[in-house]
């Protein structure tokens, strides 16, 4: 699979969405809303159940994506902390270059900011993804989401506190 048009996205952009399906560290409402936004955008994209799982397998597709970014395609990834995402590609022997890679952090950003980065290339969303966590703001945002959803907060791994 090669070329920028394979998924029908704009010619120079490839989008990858990580579901982080084996853990509950990405707020469920954020990853759900981001997926809905991507699916409703009318653009093609790739989605994986879990980027960690892919990296552990040293899935050759990660090398394909890394190579595309080095050849001029903009690779936009909706996943978690950029440092972790880069580490995962490195682990899979497919290190990402600095240029052409935009990582959006669903652990800390609200869905609309992630979608602004994924669909419009909003550079501030990318910058916010790499910035440190403001725990107070994160707590407040989580509380807002809980109130809006009228349901229990996204759970964290057994016995752990976010």
């Amino acid at each position: 699979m090669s070329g920028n048009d394979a998924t029908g996205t704009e010619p120079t952009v490839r989008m990858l969405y990580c579901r982080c399906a084996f853990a509950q560290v990405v707020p469920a409402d954020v990853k759900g809303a981001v997926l809905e936004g991507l699916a409703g955008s009318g653009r093609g994209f790739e989605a994986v159940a879990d980027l960690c799982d892919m990296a552990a397998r040293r899935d050759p597709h990660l090398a394909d994506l890394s190579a595309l970014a080095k050849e001029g395609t903009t690779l936009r990834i909706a996943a978690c902390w950029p440092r972790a995402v880069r580490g995962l590609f490195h682990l899979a022997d497919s290190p990402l270059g600095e240029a052409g890679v935009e990582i959006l952090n669903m652990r800390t950003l609200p869905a609309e900011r992630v979608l602004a980065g994924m669909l419009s290339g909003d550079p501030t969303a990318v910058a916010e993804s790499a910035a440190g966590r403001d725990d107070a703001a994160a707590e407040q945002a989580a509380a807002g989401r809980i109130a809006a959803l009228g349901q229990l907060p996204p759970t964290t791994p057994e016995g752990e506190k976010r």
Partner: protein
Amino acid sequence: MTTLATRQPRVVLYEGSGAEPFAGPERAELVAALLDRGYSVTLAHEGAAAAADDATFVVVGRFAGQAPQVTAAEATVEVHDCSGRSPAEVVGLVDGARADRPLNTPGAGDSWKPWFPVIDPVRCTNCMQCLSFCLFDVYGVDADHRLRVENPSNCKVNCPACSRVCPEVAIMFPKYHAGPIDGAPVSQTDVGREKMKIDISALLGGDLYARLRERSAEAKNRFSRERSADQALAERRRCLTKLADAAAIPREVLDALPSPEEIQRKSAEAAKRAAAALAGQAAAEGMGPAASSPST
């Protein structure tokens, strides 16, 4: 140890020419359901064949009876017309097409949770402390004597202990609940905190596993003197509790540790591999064999 297949199977949802698009909410529901089963998904608007790689085993779309033929790199891909089917029915169709291809399904009884250390190559100095520390052969070295995560599936789920011994805060566990271990930026405070953790380990005897060995040996001696199995077990339990608190090692991991003799053997092996890697690094840099080996 779990043996991992190279790839998770991929599904192509095709909405290009010759296919009707899915309704927006239905599309999102279908993609989510497939991801939650463990599949990779490509939503393709043009070129079903181009979107199919050698992990692709099925292309689904609303073809209205005009399903295209698709051949991927290594195999002919099944193409299914899912006109009029609900997302749940499409998932059933995909599951049927998968046949006996392995699939790591989140939450399934036999699934493997991808929990393992991830090295930040910008921070790692290849000091091999982690290789020396880990008893489960998770770490190894590459041909250039640099640290690599060799056997991710050997790692003990929810145990971040090796990240606590890294002097550079270079070890991440992306599924951990807090920074910087989860991959959040590392602050100066974090670096200080990590150093303090190593000091705690030093207080315990320089190396947690070495201390465990010593305490076990002490307990064994006392056991032979006092002939009290209960006392020896209590001693081991006290030691394990201290370790669990100091390095955030889950109790179940400590409980599953091998015998003290086996720990000693594995620890020596790990230290030997770390020393060899350091010597290799030094030789590659033209400095001759490494003068020192990591503490064990």
